[in-house]
């Protein structure tokens, strides 16, 4: 059972466009993280959201945690080729003793 569903699985857009990717679950999370992974490298932590409804900004990236702490979104404004990578969400599942679970990721490709 996939507890964290990420959508879309793949996304290829032109430089300068905006995009949103989603991370959804039926479980409630104590916290949720977003990571970016480039080919051949390990994932790098981008942000942690903890409070329901929380919005965090990291330059052109905006992260939102759902009010019920079951879902999250990542919005990128004016995408650049450097944003290319695999975006993973991960959460501490309260139904599994706060064990960390990962979504399968959204593979984003920004065309120059």
């Amino acid at each position, binding site marked *: 059972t996939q507890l964290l569903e990420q959508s879309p699985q793949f996304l290829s857009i032109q430089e300068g466009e905006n995009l949103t990717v989603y991370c959804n679950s039926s479980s409630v999370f104590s916290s949720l993280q977003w990571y970016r992974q480039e080919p*051949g*490298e*390990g*994932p790098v*932590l981008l942000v*942690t959201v903890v409070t329901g409804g929380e919005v965090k900004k990291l330059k052109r990236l905006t992260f939102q945690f759902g009010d019920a702490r079951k879902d999250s979104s990542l919005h990128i404004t004016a995408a650049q080729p450097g944003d290319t990578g695999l975006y993973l969400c*991960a959460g501490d599942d309260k139904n599994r003793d*706060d064990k*960390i679970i990962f979504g*399968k990721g959204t593979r984003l490709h920004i065309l120059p």
Partner: protein
Amino acid sequence: DVKVTQSSRYLVKRTGEKVFLECVQDMDHENMFWYRQDPGLGLRLIYFSYDVKMKEKGDIPEGYSVSREKKERFSLILESASTNQTSMYLCASSRGTREAGELFFGEGSRLTVL
């Protein structure tokens, strides 16, 4: 700069060989983890450790063992490598339970078993 270092970026081994993957972190983190990452399957937790000499099975421990003799070092052992263990192996560390979700990953070790 904080760091998780994995000993080998690329390894090629033969079926039946014993394989050691080493991981060292310099952040004084209590928790350490080993994942494997495969296309279409995402990251799957093999083993984790919350303290020195402690280890707990993750979701796919079969065919693997681990060792944590020192706080900074967490080793993954494949006793007898098989072709289905060809994968990208990722080590990660994190602080105590409050920040358990914030993982710091190494660069990964890509293992090919022939």
